């Protein structure tokens, strides 16, 4: 085609097709991240108001593995295994879930500026949780209502988009519907905050909306979230190749043999499940789902085959470190949503400078 093309007729060497360096690099990154995550998790067990040195943590973990735990006489074991353990696991799961759904949505909407709450899931969950808190329901009900309202908001958006698009919602209509429904729910949240009893309920509502791992960290919640993350994450992983193709737009994906309507619906359902379950347990945590896929794409490229597993690890690692700061910086606890924004926004600005060639 170009002049360079003409002296390139010697055929393709297998080395060229294989490009081992690429897949080797991806594997190395995965292994390094996994090791970093494990180290960070162990160190995080010692971080907090009550600092525990590493050798003691290792002792405690050893006694846990060998089944020689004694919670009655050993308060350190309680702190490490019953308080910090589930919190760290929950943290990693939420970070992974938000990052994966962010990556999926960015591919679906062909836009790197999209975050997992683009279809109103967080705003919906916020309303559900606010109502439950104001009515004085127990925390399980708060979680359930947040989950249901989050999914309900996305249903509303998809219904609206289908009605406008006559059965086949275009992505732009989906985004616009998401903005409208999201802002509708946000104003409901504001109204609820205004109406809430300022002394008894308002602080709870506000604190919930800013996100925290403090209240719902139990092994039971870890198990629930783990199951939900698997249920939504495995289908997304299976669709990884089709998601690549969808990034080229609906028409092209169709011409390459993809039933785009069905694929899009499947992605929306899985991503919504991931985000709604995270938000229901830990409140609204922004920026993670937007920034982590960017960092990951920066490292391993846009191919979902590598993007999904890598963003799981980076998301988990990021959330873990941020939560360590939330726990350790001040005597009380900084809401995690505040820190993710404080860290996420500058990081995103940096990435925009780095990647501006591609977006302008």
């Amino acid at each position, binding site marked *: 085609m170009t002049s360079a093309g*003409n002296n390139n007729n010697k055929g393709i060497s297998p080395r060229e097709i294989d490009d081992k360096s690429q897949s080797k690099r991806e594997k190395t990154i995965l292994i390094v991240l996994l090791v970093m995550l494990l180290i960070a998790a162990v160190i995080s067990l010692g971080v907090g108001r009550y600092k525990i040195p590493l050798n003691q943590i290792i002792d405690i973990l050893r006694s846990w593995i060998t089944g020689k735990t004694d919670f009655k006489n050993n308060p350190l074991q309680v702190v490490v295994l019953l308080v910090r353990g589930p919190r760290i696991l929950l943290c990693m799961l939420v970070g992974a879930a938000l990052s994966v759904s962010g990556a999926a949505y960015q591919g679906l909407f062909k836009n790197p500026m999209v975050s997992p709450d683009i279809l109103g899931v967080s705003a919906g969950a916020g309303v559900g949780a606010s109502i439950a808190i104001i009515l004085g329901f127990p925390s399980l009900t708060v979680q359930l209502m947040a989950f249901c309202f989050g999914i309900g908001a996305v249903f509303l958006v998809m219904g609206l988009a289908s009605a406008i698009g006559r059965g086949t919602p275009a992505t732009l209509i989906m985004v616009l519907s998401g903005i409208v429904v999201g802002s509708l729910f946000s104003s409901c949240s504001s109204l609820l905050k205004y109406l809430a009893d300022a002394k008894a309920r308002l602080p709870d509502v506000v604190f919930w909306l800013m996100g925290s791992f403090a209240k719902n960290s139990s092994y039971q919640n870890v198990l629930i979230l783990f199951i939900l993350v698997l249920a939504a994450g495995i289908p997304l992983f299976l669709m990884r190749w089709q998601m690549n193709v969808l990034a080229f737009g609906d028409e092209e994906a169709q011409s390459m043999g993809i039933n785009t309507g069905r694929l899009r619906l499947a992605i929306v359902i899985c991503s919504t499940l991931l985000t709604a379950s995270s938000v229901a347990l830990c409140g609204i945590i922004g920026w993670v789902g937007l920034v982590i896929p960017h960092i990951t794409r920066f490292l391993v490229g846009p191919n979902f085959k590598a993007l999904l597993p890598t963003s799981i690890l980076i998301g988990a690692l990021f959330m873990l470190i941020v939560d360590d700061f939330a726990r350790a910086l001040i005597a009380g606890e900084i809401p995690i949503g505040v820190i993710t924004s404080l860290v996420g926004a500058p990081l995103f600005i940096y990435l925009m400078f780095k990647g501006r060639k591609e977006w302008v």
Partner: protein
Amino acid sequence: MGMSLEIKDIKCGFGPRVVVNGFNATVNSGEILCMLGPNGVGKSTLFKTVLGFLKPMGGEILLDGKAINTLSRKEFAKIMAYVPQVHSPPFPFKVIDVVMMGRTARIGTFGIPSRRDKEIAASMLERLGVTFLLNRTYTEISGGERQMVLIARALAQEPAFLMLDEPTSNLDFGNQVHVLQCISDLARNNGLGIIMTTHFPDHVFQCDGHVALIEWNNVFLTGKADDIITEENMRNTYGIEIKVVKNKFSETTISSCIPLIKTVMKLW
């Protein structure tokens, strides 16, 4: 083994608005059909309908006598491939990955391309003489190179028919000729049936194809380039004056259109 694509009395448009009504054409394996017509006359609408992106409002499109709406997306993609206009996707995929996307219809719904799919993708790049692009980033190569990658992606589908949307627009003169050469080669030597839209009547002459001239008010003229691209038809369609010149080479004659610009010709 030839196949045929028949477009029969098709009526198409968006929502309630009918854009094209009563269009007929047939393309066989090894043939090139160029769709020519003014901006806004409905070329794209017709094109999208044949590709199945828009539902026809009437008439039918048959592949070897079988209506295309009875085929699944996947089955259709194994027969018909689409080369869109050059664009830039939001994510920096590698060229080989882009070409492998053409294999999607030939792998399982939840599958990923195998080693063999990668070899097929690489061989398509080689066939088009652009092997050097293999490990480059799609968003960082030139427009002409992207067009070749998109053609390679379509070929990776191993289709019987290829539909190209203005494959020569936005390309420099050299790349236009390269792409035409490639299209002509695919039809003549590989037996693909090709439908392409174009704004250049000369390109129809140059690849010796059939032409469907789409005029306003659902007037369609279909036939060999020399019969359709005439001074009178161009005047009717575009409201311009041209001269068709026959250029004789040793064995072939290739016509070309010379537009007559009033101020230059000093005719009027």
